[in-house]
């Protein structure tokens, strides 16, 4: 097992190096939008302004040198400085990770709170109207994209509930490390902003969890040990929850892992609509402003998260189900 983990870690490092190199190359080999933007904004000769910007950002040095600086910086945990704000990207990411994490965890909570009971219910009441109704709802939830749902939800709330979420009023719920920022003034205001995006993203994920869990439950409910449990005269609750659900939940771990993997920058659209100052919005703005170090840092961060969450899921899986062995 340890050998397997070490081998996977090695492969992961290779993948991350590839990601870093690919982004670096793509950004450097395409005509630079950042220089154009700078030249347009500057007074006087646009050519000179472009050259000045190029020198000040270090883009005039030979490509291998830039690459070496970048990669050796990564090894030290340095993601470079933002072209725009000149602040370290690492620091900017640290400031913005809170809202994203909060939104992601809220979504996960909504997803599990809806997906698991609904999945169990649909499996137990298979082929009844309850099953059809719940499955129809998941088809709808999976089909309507989050941003369309968000727009419709805003419209609905404003028209029929007379309420619009205070979109610009985002406040951090939890102070960030090193915890010297002032404590959240008003958790209620925070939740008002977060409620809709958390619900929308969470229900979408909940639909995936529900479908997955339902088919797993159906398979497990047909197993012989479940029939034995029924034959022993156990209560339905005990059979379903203790014998069937515990085994059916295993593959759901995979789904939850996948969701966690997209948690860091997966909410780009929702963060942009509800103006939540998280990593998704940060990445989008980085791309819009041709801020190479920000784009590089964010892609690498997302890749890191995905790769290691995948590894974690595989290891967790083997730990939860002793029958699974990795060679």
């Amino acid at each position, binding site marked *: 097992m340890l050998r397997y983990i070490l081998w996977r870690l090695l*492969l992961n490092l*290779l*993948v*991350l190096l*590839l*990601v870093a190199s*690919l982004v670096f190359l*793509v*950004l450097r080999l*395409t*005509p630079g*939008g950042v220089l154009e933007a700078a030249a347009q904004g500057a007074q006087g000769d646009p050519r000179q302004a472009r050259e000045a910007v190029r020198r000040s950002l270090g883009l005039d040095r030979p490509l291998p040198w830039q690459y070496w600086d970048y990669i050796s910086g990564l090894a030290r945990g340095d993601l470079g400085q933002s072209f725009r704000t000149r602040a370290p990207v690492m620091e900017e990411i640290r400031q913005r990770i809170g809202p994203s994490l909060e939104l992601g965890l809220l979504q996960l909570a909504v997803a599990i709170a809806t997906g698991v009971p609904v999945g169990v219910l649909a499996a137990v009441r298979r082929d009844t109207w309850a099953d059809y109704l719940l499955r129809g709802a998941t*088809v*709808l939830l*999976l*089909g*309507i*994209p989050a*941003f*369309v749902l968000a*727009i*419709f939800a*805003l*419209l609905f709330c*404003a*028209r029929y509930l007379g309420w619009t979420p205070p979109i610009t009023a985002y406040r951090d719920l939890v102070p960030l490390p090193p915890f010297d920022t002032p404590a959240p003034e008003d958790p209620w205001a925070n939740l008002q902003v977060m409620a809709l995006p958390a619900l929308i993203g969470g229900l979408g994920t909940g639909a*995936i969890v529900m*479908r*997955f869990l*339902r*088919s797993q439950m159906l398979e497990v409910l047909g197993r012989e040990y479940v029939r034995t449990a029924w034959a022993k005269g156990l209560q339905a609750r005990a059979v379903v929850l203790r014998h069937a659900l515990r085994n059916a939940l295993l593959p759901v771990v995979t789904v939850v892992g996948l969701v966690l993997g*997209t948690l860091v*920058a*997966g909410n*780009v*659209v929702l963060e*942009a609509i509800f103006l939540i100052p998280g990593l998704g919005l940060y*990445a*989008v703005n980085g*791309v*819009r402003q*041709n801020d190479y170090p920000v*784009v590089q840092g*964010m*892609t690498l961060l*997302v*890749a890191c998260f*995905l*790769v290691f969450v995948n590894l974690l899921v595989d290891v967790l899986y083997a730990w939860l189900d002793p029958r699974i062995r990795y060679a």
Partner: protein
Amino acid sequence: MPGWTRASATPEEAAARQSAPPLPWPQAGERARRRTLLRLLRRRPLGAAAMAAVLAMLALSLGPPQPRFGLPDLPARPLGFEMGRPFLARYGPEDFFRDESGRLARFQGPSRQHWLGTDDKGRDVWSRLVWGTRRSLFFALWALALGTVGGTAVGLVSAYFLGTLDLLLQRLMDALQSFPPLLVLMLAVSLVEPSLRVLAVALAIVVMPGAQRVARSVVLSVRQEPYVEAARALGASHLRVIVRHVLPNAVAPAVVVFTVGLGAAVLAEAALSFIDPSTVPQAASWGLMLAEGRAFMFEHPHVVLAAGGAIALAVMAFNLAGDALRDALDPRLRLF
């Protein structure tokens, strides 16, 4: 006792069978096909409805072909020749209208002239939706076609030769897969001259890792088969073995990957146009309409409702049709 279990037939029977007139295959096949369609309708009414919706999308996007040829380009030349105004669009995408007093006919409700009303610039919402259908549909088709073909090729080569090549190719695919799709699309339009062609290629790159994984798993099991070994022993080249003996196994899964991914591609294009409306190509698009309509959605929600409804319907139709096709072609690919 069913006939096919009898091992020995009498000589008379064998002769009678040989002299029997050829069966009327076309009619029988046609009947079988009709029965399949009926069964589909009965067993998967939702899937059948979704397929009808996809066909309706295709009908919406067709227009009179023009004899002007060239490399496929979106949205004017989706299939290599130019297509005129969609038959079902009543006006051009940028035509604007004035009311009787000569002012711009903004925010009109549905009427006989404007089935879904007009938007903030006095343009016909229905016509823009129909023009947008062509963009969404052919964008998805092209992106998925490129992605599945490319991915299948990579998967074939990777799993056929294995070894270091496989190890490296797979890591490259892992790397590609860990890019956030929306950011890749945004990068593509910010780095080079934005066009739907560039976007389709960018999305194809995003799709490739998934497609190659499916092809790879098929090839991994097929390459052990005796007939592959036999072909090699007979002196067939690697290329011949791959194309004639291995590739046919990967076609059905590739078709499934293609159809199941279409919904996500429509979604990706709409999401990009919505998030970054200033940089994407400006031709009529559902995502753009949603983004523009957002500015006035509380007073005049009809534009947002129409565009959002179109996106949701299209994504849902593609998802359900893809699921139905997958169950028919290759149920093993079912995830849940």
